[in-house]
């Protein structure tokens, strides 16, 4: 095995091998990441760095390795999106209202990772309550994408809401990271940072201990530099959890073994509705190239139709705010979180604490959600949106009668400049046009880096699978990854200051 000289550039799979065979200690590797994170503060990828905890965990890992008691992720440093509750470590959800919240318990997903031996480097920045597609709604300032266009030093967004995790993976600040995906929040930032992001089937990973946004859409998943690494992390994030009533007890195949199975004989569906008028020609060209790659690898390309695709985003912007308005009712300034000063009574306390604690996008979504659920409007908005969801899920079911997975673009374009879409909420929402359908239907999907724009910015392709068929999604993703041969890295401009 030839490894890069800098351990921060190992893949998760290589790092696992190197630590297990004692070519490098976890302490040494973790120290390298701690220094890389420190040097990358201009990216603002982390809300909270936990170097002391990381080095202590690494030391314990090295002891377990020495005793022959290593877990499957022993000593491997990861970053955790600041939406996962971590016991004793501040968890903010990117919001002022939780800026001083220290959970007394650990989320199931992060506990699973620690039980497997992984090391926590810190908590990554994100759009406030995961509501955003650019990381600009974070109370803790935007994350900067490690990528820049050629011959430009303009700061670009890393996508969102898991933008901190995407930047940390792309900038070599961790081996992998956790993300959550409600409308595209793993796949869209992965695509615009040249990384791999997997949204598992709804119910595959427990939602317990993840700050809730839209409960029927939220799902945790891995963000990594390779498809194999995503398969490894998914295995150790997923579990059957009695504390999440929607956690599903369906056996998990060996994802990592499935990755190399190839696509020979698979039927790949190309949904014609994903061809957007006015989309940059590079997006369509990459999509066509992706289909060619899979065909060359032995797959059959099938044209399919998902007729209700155009209604997915508007339906989402009813369902998600409705659920958010309900979930965020708990922030009252009484039990935890920000509390306004100088209030005259209890209602004043609620109203002022919430107005001060929530940012503009969150307030807007709470009001939309409250409106669409309010008496007299429920049927016109919420019930209609849920019916559209049925139709969207039915579209997928029909398409999957003719194919095994779907291939689509991941985003309508590459990373954009900070502030470019902040003035118009609807134009910001359109970033998730290719990803949001999947959440509405609960399906698994992966974004895989597949190429660069003429300006040298990464673009991704998305593979959508049948419910609980992450294995086929992963092996198709691996096939794209191999054919694309994507090895580009962002120039580490943040180190040269």
């Amino acid at each position: 095995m030839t490894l890069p000289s800098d351990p921060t550039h190992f893949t998760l799979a290589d790092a696992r091998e190197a630590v297990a065979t004692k070519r490098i200690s976890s302490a040494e590797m973790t120290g390298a990441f701690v220094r890389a994170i420190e040097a990358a503060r201009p990216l603002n990828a982390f809300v909270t760095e936990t170097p002391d905890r990381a080095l202590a965990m690494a030391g314990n890992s090295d002891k377990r390795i020495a005793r022959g008691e290593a877990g499957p992720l022993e000593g491997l440093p990861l970053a955790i999106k600041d939406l996962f509750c971590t016991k004793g470590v501040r968890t903010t959800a990117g919001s002022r209202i939780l800026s001083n919240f220290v959970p007394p318990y650990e989320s199931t997903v992060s506990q699973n990772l620690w039980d497997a031996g992984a090391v926590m480097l810190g908590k990554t920045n994100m759009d406030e309550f995961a509501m955003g597609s650019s990381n600009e709604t974070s109370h803790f300032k935007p994350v900067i994408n490690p990528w820049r266009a050629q011959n430009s030093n303009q700061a670009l967004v890393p996508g969102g809401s898991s933008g901190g995790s995407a930047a940390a993976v792309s900038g070599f600040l961790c081996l992998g990271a956790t993300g959550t995906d409600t409308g595209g929040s793993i796949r869209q930032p992965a695509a615009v940072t040249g990384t791999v992001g997997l949204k598992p089937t709804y119910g595959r990973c427990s939602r317990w201990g993840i700050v809730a946004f839209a409960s029927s859409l939220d799902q945790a998943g891995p963000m990594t530099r390779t498809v194999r690494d995503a398969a490894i992390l998914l295995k150790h994030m997923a579990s059957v959890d009695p504390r999440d009533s929607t956690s599903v007890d369906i056996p998990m195949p060996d994802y990592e073994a499935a990755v190399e199975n190839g696509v020979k004989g698979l039927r790949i569906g190309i949904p014609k509705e994903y061809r957007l008028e006015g989309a940059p020609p590079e997006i369509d060209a990459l999509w066509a190239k992706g289909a060619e790659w899979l065909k060359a690898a032995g797959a059959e390309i099938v044209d399919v139709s998902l007729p209700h695709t155009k209604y997915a985003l508007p339906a989402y912007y009813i369902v998600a705010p409705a659920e958010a308005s309900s979930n965020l009712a708990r922030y009252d300034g009484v039990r935890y979180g920000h509390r306004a000063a100088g209030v005259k009574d209890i209602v004043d306390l609620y109203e002022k604490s919430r107005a001060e604690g929530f940012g503009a996008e969150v307030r807007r979504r709470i009001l939309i959600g409250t409106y669409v659920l309010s008496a007299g409007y429920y049927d016109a908005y919420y019930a209609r949106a849920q019916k559209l969801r049925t139709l969207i899920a039915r579209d997928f079911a029909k398409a999957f009668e003719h194919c095994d997975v779907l291939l689509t673009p991941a985003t309508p374009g590459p990373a954009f400049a900070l502030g470019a879409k902040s003035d118009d909420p609807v134009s910001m929402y359109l970033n998730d046009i290719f990803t949001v359908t999947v959440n509405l239907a609960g399906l698994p999907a992966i974004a895989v880096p597949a190429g660069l724009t003429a300006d040298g910015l990464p673009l991704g392709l998305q593979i959508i699978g049948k419910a609980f068929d992450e294995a086929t999604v992963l092996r198709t993703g691996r096939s794209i990854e191999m054919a694309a041969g994507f090895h580009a890295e962002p120039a580490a401009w943040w180190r040269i200051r």
Partner: protein
Amino acid sequence: MSVDKDTVRRIAKLARLALEEERVEPMMNELNQILAWVQQLEEVDVSDVAPMTSVVKQKLKMRDDAVTEGGDAAAITANAPMSEDHFFVVPKVVE
């Protein structure tokens, strides 16, 4: 459908979200922009369609109605902005 300023004030009240008077009109405009955009859902005939109630096919799990953890008032009130003797403190509610 669109919202007027009174509706914006009413839903802000329902959501327990203080909204300064000068923010009412801009918020109304933002909400109407979004509502105008979601209005395209009305193009679709949904008369014979059942609303989705479960994302993946599954029977909701039942568990024993039993106490599994608890008895840790200190941990529960640890994040409270104001607490006293393991009680949450709020402004006077009853005269």
